[in-house]
């Protein structure tokens, strides 16, 4: 089993460094915001999200022509525990993979964190919020919106990779060719990401919907719209 993130030397040093600085800045912001907003009872749930994303990233599924794909997990993490704690959880997964399992180069860690943790947890979560608003306030809309957003995550990650290749890659093939093949394969991987994310979200929504960050805004809206039950101050 050889899951592969971006290895060392794939993208040049300056581009990797810039991606590293962007990753450090956004991870630092996420640490600060999570420190202010995290509820104590959520602490083990964020740990569970990281462990689960790690496990799911090991499960490569076949897509086409002898190619496989695996979950990235940024959208799943962000919908479950919020974009900031979710970005941190997936970042820890990528750091552990690079250091312990040699999956993804050490100098490429910033690139991998940007593409798989930050793009998924922030851009992917943005897609989730928009789709959930379009679908209306209901529990199934949370699961559906998470699935739709999860589909976009590998596609957005492949766009980010193509941009990085355009700036700091070698000249083996044209940027257009990289863009085309990356988008094609990652659209298929996105289908897998959507299915896995929707199953996981559906299970958590059935067991503990109150723990789902992306569902809390729905719950708040319902409380505001519904008349308060008698006896509740």
């Amino acid at each position, binding site marked *: 089993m050889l899951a592969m993130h971006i290895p060392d030397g*794939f993208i040049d040093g300056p581009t990797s460094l810039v991606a590293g600085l962007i990753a450090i800045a956004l991870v630092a912001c996420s640490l600060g915001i999570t420190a202010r907003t995290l509820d104590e009872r959520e*602490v083990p749930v964020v740990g569970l999200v990281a462990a689960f994303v790690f496990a799911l990233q090991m499960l490569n599924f076949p897509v086409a022509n002898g190619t*496989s794909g695996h979950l990235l997990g940024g959208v799943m993490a962000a919908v479950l525990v919020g974009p900031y704690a979710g970005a941190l959880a997936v970042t820890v997964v990528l750091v552990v993979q690079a250091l312990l*399992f040699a*999956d993804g180069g050490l100098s490429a860690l910033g690139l991998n964190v940007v593409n798989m943790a930050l793009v998924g947890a922030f851009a992917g979560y943005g897609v989730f919020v928009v789709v959930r608003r379009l679908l209306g306030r209901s529990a199934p809309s949370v699961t559906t919106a998470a699935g739709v957003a999860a589909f976009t995550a590998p596609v957005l990650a492949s766009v980010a990779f193509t941009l990085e290749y355009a700036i700091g890659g*070698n000249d083996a093939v044209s940027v257009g060719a990289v863009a085309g093949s990356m988008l094609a394969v990652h659209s298929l991987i996105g289908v897998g990401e959507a299915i896995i994310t929707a199953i996981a979200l559906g299970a958590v929504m059935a*067991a503990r919907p109150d723990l789902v960050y992306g569902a809390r805004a729905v719950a708040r809206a319902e409380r505001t719209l519904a008349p308060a039950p008698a006896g509740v101050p």
Partner: protein
Amino acid sequence: MSRRRLSIAAFVVAGLVVAVLLVVFVAPHASSNPDGLERIAADSGIDRDARPSAAADGPLAGYGVAGVESATAGTIVAGVVGVAGTFIIVVGVMLVLRRRRSRPPAEPAAG
């Protein structure tokens, strides 16, 4: 719904059990084909300048265990270590963040 709500502890333990079951029983059967990026890299030559990771000689590099022949056993050990490790590290980070918030404002040091 009158169904009794799962406690957070039970929810987290159940989730960790599912994660361990996935790496023990499903991960050894996961597709061993190259993933999207790896395949495109190999086909196009954009990985021409790629170097092995500095961590490539680690005991768990490549999701296996150094010295253990069986890929299945290696995958399972790597998976369980990864699931436990990521859980412990993230909970540790979150507890440090929580503690930094709940600490009362520092008093000016005497002297």
